[in-house]
């Protein structure tokens, strides 16, 4: 497929998402809720672009728009820029304290004084990545509750979630740094629950919670959970190679 993005001709596989095509060709499209590991949120709508097909122009979200024919794409037209700016103002009013704002302000700032009552201190912009991460793990400890303007991310009954294994995936994917996760004296606290941390048998660094280890074990009763941090794991592999080489006499 031939796709012309901002005047540049790019090649795309049939069905490939526009955002991926643009990325591969070094064309920048802003995103907030996109994660290569958890694609398809399509909730922040920052990745909108104009697609011209058969003479007609439409606005689409590039992260979920599949290329199915020869199209022309404008990622940065006046209209797109105007709408993105409106979105940034809306995001600023609802989650001004989120980490995502740093980048947005750099790119789109300075913003005019906000017309609305700003939700001071709020970090979450309700992109839904944390929920998707938790769902993808199969734990499903948190979800979005309510609809419309009452929507929020929360564990069931807003109580410390029983299903949570304290893996921290939600906190890691969060673009706003909105999920509080603290570690102190071998105890990790997240979603108002405390988890005992297990140490790396190599270097002694805390690497996972006990519940996490149990969860992995329960999923694969045959396998063994190696208590090694990434660094020590790599070291072990390298050492293994070295030993193997040593034995062959090199």
């Amino acid at each position, binding site marked *: 497929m031939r796709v012309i993005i901002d005047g540049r001709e790019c090649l795309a596989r049939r069905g490939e998402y526009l955002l991926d095509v643009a990325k591969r060709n070094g064309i920048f499209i802003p995103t907030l809720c996109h994660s290569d590991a958890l694609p*398809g949120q399509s909730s*922040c709508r920052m990745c909108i672009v104009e697609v011209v097909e058969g003479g007609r122009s439409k606005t689409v979200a590039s992260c979920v728009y599949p290329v199915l024919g020869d199209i022309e794409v404008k990622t940065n037209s006046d209209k797109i820029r105007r*709408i993105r700016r409106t*979105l940034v103002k809306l995001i600023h009013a609802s989650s001004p304290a989120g980490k995502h704002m740093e980048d947005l302000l750099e790119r789109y700032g300075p913003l005019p004084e906000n*017309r*609305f009552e700003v939700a001071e201190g709020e970090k979450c912009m309700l992109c839904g990545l944390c929920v998707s991460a938790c769902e993808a793990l199969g734990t499903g400890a948190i979800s979005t509750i309510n*609809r*419309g303007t009452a929507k929020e991310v929360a564990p069931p009954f807003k109580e410390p979630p029983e299903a949570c294994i304290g893996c921290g995936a939600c906190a890691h994917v969060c673009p706003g740094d909105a999920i509080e996760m603290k570690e102190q004296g071998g105890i990790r606290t997240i979603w108002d629950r405390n988890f005992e941390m297990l140490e790396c048998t190599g270097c002694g660094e805390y690497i996972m919670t006990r519940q996490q280890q149990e969860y992995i074990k329960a999923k694969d009763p045959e396998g063994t959970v190696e208590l090694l941090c990434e660094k020590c794991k790599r070291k072990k592999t390298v050492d293994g190679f070295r030993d193997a080489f040593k034995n062959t006499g090199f």
Partner: protein
Amino acid sequence: MLVCCGTGCLANGSHGVYREFEKMLKYADHSVKVKAVTKATGCNGLCEMGPIVKILPDDIFYCRVKASDVEDIVRETLAGGRPVERLLYTDPATGKRVKSHRETDFYKNQQKIALRNIGEIDPANIDDYIQRGGYRALAKALDKMSAGEVIDEIEKSGIRGRGGAGFPTGRKWRHCAGANGATKYIVCNGDEGDPGAFMDRSIMEGDPHSIIEGMAIGAYAVGARKGYIYIRDEYSLALKSMSRAIEQAKERGYLGDSIMGSSHSFDMDIVRGGGAFVCGESSALIASIEGRIGEPRAKYIHATQRGLWDKPTVLNNVETWANVPVIIDRGSGWFNSIGTGKSKGTKVFSLVGKVQNTGLIEVPMGISLGKIIFDIGGGIPGGKAFKAVQTGGPSGGCIPGSMMDLEVDFESLGSAGSMMGSGGMIVMDEDTCMVEVARYYTKFLAEESCGKCLPCREGLRRMLDILNDICEGRGHKEDMDTLLEICEALREASLCALGKTAPNPVETTLRYFREEYLEHIQDKRCRAGVCPDLTEYYIDESLCRGCGLCAKNCPAGAITGQPGSAYIINHDLCTKCGRCRRVCKFGAVGIGGGAVV
């Protein structure tokens, strides 16, 4: 004898009337020469006048019948052959009583296709449906037509979806028929989430077999063997009526294996829905049937390719399905001759609000708005001035009184900034504040949006903030531009049609009633007296006759004065309920407020 047992009439006690007839006729048989048959039917449309009783073959039409009237009807009409004058319908235009409903403006200007059987048959009786030509179209399709020919017919008829977007039904079916895969599904959207709408409910309650037959024909056309009808949980009567009809259709072999001896098999089930407004959106509805949370998904790939359980799926609205058998039976040419250039056939509307005849109507596409509101609807009650009509459900737009010549079809409603939607039509008079109308719908949408995508959730939240400010006297002049700026983001960047259409109420009121926004913002005044913070009632000395009626009626005791001389409103006590204005016989209570008084 047909007793309307639609939801509106049932609420007014029509079942009691029905039972009374049955009881009376059991004992009164000696004086009634003909054998009387009483039937409980679906909604007649003129709910305002319910309970409604029709007597065939003379076509006598009685309104607001009570159980106590039954004796008179049996004695006078059934035994004596005379109408009971006091129960006949009074034409609001002429003030005369008319015998048959067909003589009334309300019915005369209508044309019934989707509602063809409603009020004429007992929905619990499949033979009633068959007697009026039911299942003939299915037989014709299976016997004499190939699947491709059925699709051709539907395409040539020009029918477009009645559930909202108006997508050509034939094209949808063709896409699905051409999609790869052996398993395909047919879905009927009976969610009907628009508050106050009852078009689809009436069809499900009053003529369930028309939907089943339509779906069976659609299934044959696209090659589906399984269908689902999604009905909201609150619609208990519709649920009952549909499930009974499905059972009957199965017993008679209109559903199931080898339908009517053909090689086509099709079965259907009911899915009960939680009933959130957004669940009516096609991808949310499909998610909901699959047992997942009812939120819209990005659908750059159509359901006809990948729909229910990722299989090719045709999803149509209740009214769309109910049209299908008639098109096959009478031919696409006949259907195509009704309506306008790109909008064919008829449309059902629920006509409500400040209009004499509220109820369910079906009119040919292209009829003018004025004809609907004034001829069928009988105009505005209480001698008030007509201001606007809101069409298309909560995310429709408001069309001003100056555009009453507008032909009602998909294109012209769209170009007026509104939409056909599923057929809501709310009439507004001079006592309506258009800013408040925009605020009301924006609030509804802000609460009913699924809240997943940012422009819709945050855009509606902030639009509502602004509209609240304007209605409460805190509006700025720049607010109108800010509203339009957010509207653009919603329309262009939202994920589903809820967000994309949500700007309509605000955009149309800004377009047609800008001066009311300005009054609210600059003069701090609400001309309709609806926004309490911007309303001040005053008594015009030159008009007040000093009767004191207002003072007597004021619940806050805010009106003082001496009989014979002009009364005065104490603004510190006034709660702005507006009762004084409503009771004054001399029009002496005016609405001021803000900078004007």
